[in-house]
């Protein structure tokens, strides 16, 4: 068993993890306290799911825009279930982070005069989304990865799968990881640990997410007693490709694309987003530039009314870009063209793209304070895995890429600060925890289990999440999903892995990921069932629960792990210090209002 000591260990090599690593390194340098930083990732960092983000990153940029406007959009976009102090910090630090990316070489798209170009995005009052064509996440991730190579103090552990956090007396003391190539356990002792492991979109059958987005970090923190917060809020992106769920960016609509039902009618005007804006003249917060939750909900309504078309087995509506012209489409949305052509054989220059909503983003996650620290001392979380309180009940497109920069850096700096004042724990404490891990692995590989296949369990999980926790939810559906998760957790305790090889055993990893997934799926179902109102991405069809209920539910849900027993839920007050809850309105209805 390999054992190494680091000041800071970062789990996850996507945007937030890389930004945290660089942030920590810079902070240590500035304060002349040399620190060693380990960056673990279960894949090579440039494979991380940040790579698939397309549309852009938001920050107040133009002279007409204001921090207040970005704050208002984010708060109302999140249906007031956001931590307003956190949003305030976020909007004030967004711009400097995007400029920092530019200084590191990120190829942002430009205006003729050499300034950075911005585009429109859903739910945002003005154009404030920086972009690099329609591969913004790709360019950001590669820029961060390449920049991280400048720092010799960052040591990468590529393809190391983290099995558990080591925690002693309420403080994190390291992590236990599996080297995928060899199957050997590795103990990393640390003074601070940052989780940057991404979301949990793969809990659902139909999603835009990469195969690695399995919520590992969420489950690890949760199992050690950290609350998972607001897990019932799962974002359906309105435009995924039928069949695969591959993401078709919101930027298509930001650039002027329109949504049509099978009759060629711009149905969004019937759902409080109108009146219809002229073709090729998109207007912020109107029609196609409404927020994602509203658009996905409108799809569901059209589907119920029988006004959706068919593509293969899927019900679809259509995203029409043709009026933008070939030159503009190829300049602004080249990746979309490539994807549509490759995966559904449709050329967006010539035909409308059939699309349907797909699970895209986990608004909730590991509860942290405004400085990214969890309830375990020295354990931080940033990016999609965290619930710092930015997104509330619905995330606005292009806020998450900025989030991973702003809070990745903050988490890195905070971890560096802590590491400078903390000592390593006794190695024997880690070793004891590693032994328990070894026993768990042994049970999976050669235990006396029923031998039930993980594949069956996984399919049951994603099916139940989709049917019970979809765009619209019912008491009965959610209750059934919750029950299913509890049964699946019991069955999971008895599964066994066929592959007993030590070398690159991906079956073992899938099984461990499934275990993580089942735990957080239970938390998600429990939060959904207990939230007896409709807010943002959580919409109920049940009588008396179809509206927002600020009296009882202007509260974060917190779910706590209870081992084999059912998880427990508590409610937590929301920080509404700047903006009192108001009606959330778009289109003409939103005109003149506070938002």
């Amino acid at each position, binding site marked *: 068993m390999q054992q190494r000591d680091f000041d800071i260990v970062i789990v996850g090599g996507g945007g937030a993890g890389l930004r945290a690593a660089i942030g920590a390194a810079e902070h240590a340098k500035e304060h002349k306290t040399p620190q060693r930083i380990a960056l673990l990732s279960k894949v090579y960092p440039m*494979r991380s*799911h940040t*790579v698939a983000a397309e549309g852009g990153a938001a920050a107040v940029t133009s002279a007409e825009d204001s921090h207040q406007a970005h704050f208002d959009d984010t708060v109302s976009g999140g249906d007031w279930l956001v931590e307003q102090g956190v949003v305030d910090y976020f909007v004030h630090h967004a711009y400097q982070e995007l*400029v920092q990316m530019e200084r590191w070489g990120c190829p942002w798209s430009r205006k003729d005069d050499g300034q950075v170009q911005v585009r429109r995005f859903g739910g945002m009052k003005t154009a404030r989304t920086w972009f690099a064509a329609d591969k913004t996440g790709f360019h950001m991730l590669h820029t961060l990865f*390449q920049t991280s190579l400048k720092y010799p103090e960052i040591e990468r552990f590529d393809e190391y799968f983290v099995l558990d956090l080591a925690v002693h007396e309420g403080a994190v003391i390291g992590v236990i990881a599996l080297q995928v190539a060899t199957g050997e356990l590795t103990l990393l002792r640390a003074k601070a640990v940052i989780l940057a492991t991404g979301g949990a979109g793969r809990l659902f059958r139909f999603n835009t997410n990469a195969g690695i987005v399995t919520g590992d970090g969420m489950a690890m923190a949760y199992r050690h007693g950290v609350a998972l917060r607001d897990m019932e809020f799962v974002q359906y992106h309105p435009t995924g490709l039928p069949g695969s769920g591959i993401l078709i960016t919101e930027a298509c609509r930001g650039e002027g694309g329109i949504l049509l039902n099978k009759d060629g009618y711009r149905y969004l005007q019937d759902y409080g987003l109108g009146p219809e804006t002229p073709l090729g003249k998109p207007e912020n917060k109107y029609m196609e530039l409404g927020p994602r939750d509203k658009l996905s909900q409108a799809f569901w309504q059209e589907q119920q009314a029988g006004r959706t078309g068919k593509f*293969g087995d899927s019900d679809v509506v259509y995203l029409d870009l043709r009026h933008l012209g070939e030159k503009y489409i190829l300049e602004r949305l080249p990746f979309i063209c490539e994807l549509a052509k490759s995966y559904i054989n449709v050329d967006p220059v010539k035909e409308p793209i059939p699309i349907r909503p797909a699970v895209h983003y986990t608004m909730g996650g590991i509860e942290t304070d405004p400085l990214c620290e969890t309830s375990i001392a020295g354990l931080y979380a940033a990016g999609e895995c965290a619930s710092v309180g930015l997104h509330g009940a619905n995330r606005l497109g292009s806020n998450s890429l900025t989030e991973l920069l702003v809070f990745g850096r903050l988490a890195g700096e905070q971890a560096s600060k802590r590491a400078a004042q903390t000592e390593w724990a006794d190695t024997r404490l880690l070793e004891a925890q590693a032994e328990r891990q070894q026993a768990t692995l042994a049970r999976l590989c050669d235990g006396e289990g029923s031998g039930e296949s993980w594949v069956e369990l996984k399919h049951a999980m994603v099916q139940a999440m989709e049917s019970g926790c979809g765009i619209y939810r019912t008491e009965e559906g959610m209750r059934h999903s919750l029950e299913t998760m509890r049964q699946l957790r019991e069955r999971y305790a008895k599964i066994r*892995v066929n592959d007993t090889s030590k070398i*690159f055993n991906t079956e073992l990893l899938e099984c461990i990921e499934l275990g993580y997934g089942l735990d957080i799926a239970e938390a998600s179902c429990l939060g959904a069932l207990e939230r007896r109102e409709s807010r943002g991405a959580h919409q109920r069809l049940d009588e008396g629960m179809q509206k927002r209920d600020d009296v009882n539910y202007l509260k974060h849900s917190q779910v706590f792990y209870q081992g084999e027993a059912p998880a427990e839920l508590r409610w937590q007050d929301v920080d509404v210090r700047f903006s009192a809850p108001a009606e959330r309105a778009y289109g003409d209805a939103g005109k003149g209002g506070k938002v």
Partner: protein
Amino acid sequence: MSTEQITTKSVSTNNTSIKHISVKRYLPDSSAEAYWQQYEMPVDDSTSLLDALNHIKEQLDSTLSYRWSCRMAICGSCGVMVNGIPKLGCKTFLRDYEGEIRIEPLSHFPVQRDLVVDMEIFLEHLAAVKPYLIDDNPVKPYDPKAPETYQQTPEQLARYKQFANCINCGLCYSACPQFGLNPEFLGPAALTLAHRYNLDSRDHGKKQRMTELNRHEGVWSCTFVGFCSQVCPKHVDPAAAVNQGKVEAAKHTLIALFKG
């Protein structure tokens, strides 16, 4: 807006057939020898090679190992040899193949297991060329309190943009016989990335990178076979970048000569 019924052609999902896929297996902890294993499965027009591998993993043989993640040709994980040609599994469709389909791990890399190769040397080559913006004496240093971007016109961006689209999938290394002959050759992707920064109007690191580029294992090992550009799934054209790099390296040598 006209309200006419929209119809789009559909990638048929009912055009099902049975296909055979042969996969080169290598399980070092049970046998030192690689062997071929054949799988049979139903496919339709939308089935990608990655879908097929996932089908094998979940339904037929859970011991098959391979890398994958985004399944939309942007993460660069799932490169394999398909009938001898390097391809991304997620961007390869079985409908395009008649007869036998033979899947092997990427050429020119050591195989760890089944379709998984050791990419470490690729990452070392990447890091060697200083693939990050170098501007040691900026006109205006970055200040978080008064952040200011560089200026860069769309024309200046266009000069390097194509070369910034590399997803590090490694297909070009499997296509490059020079890398196969000498793994110390920095190779197409690393040299392209170096060239990308050299072309960036914000960068001043060309001189530093030249020590790596302008040597035998740098640009001069390339003989312009050009297969790297043929197999590149993102049309980055690494062969062009490497050979533009030769021109730059030659200029660098000449200038150094005259300066003494």
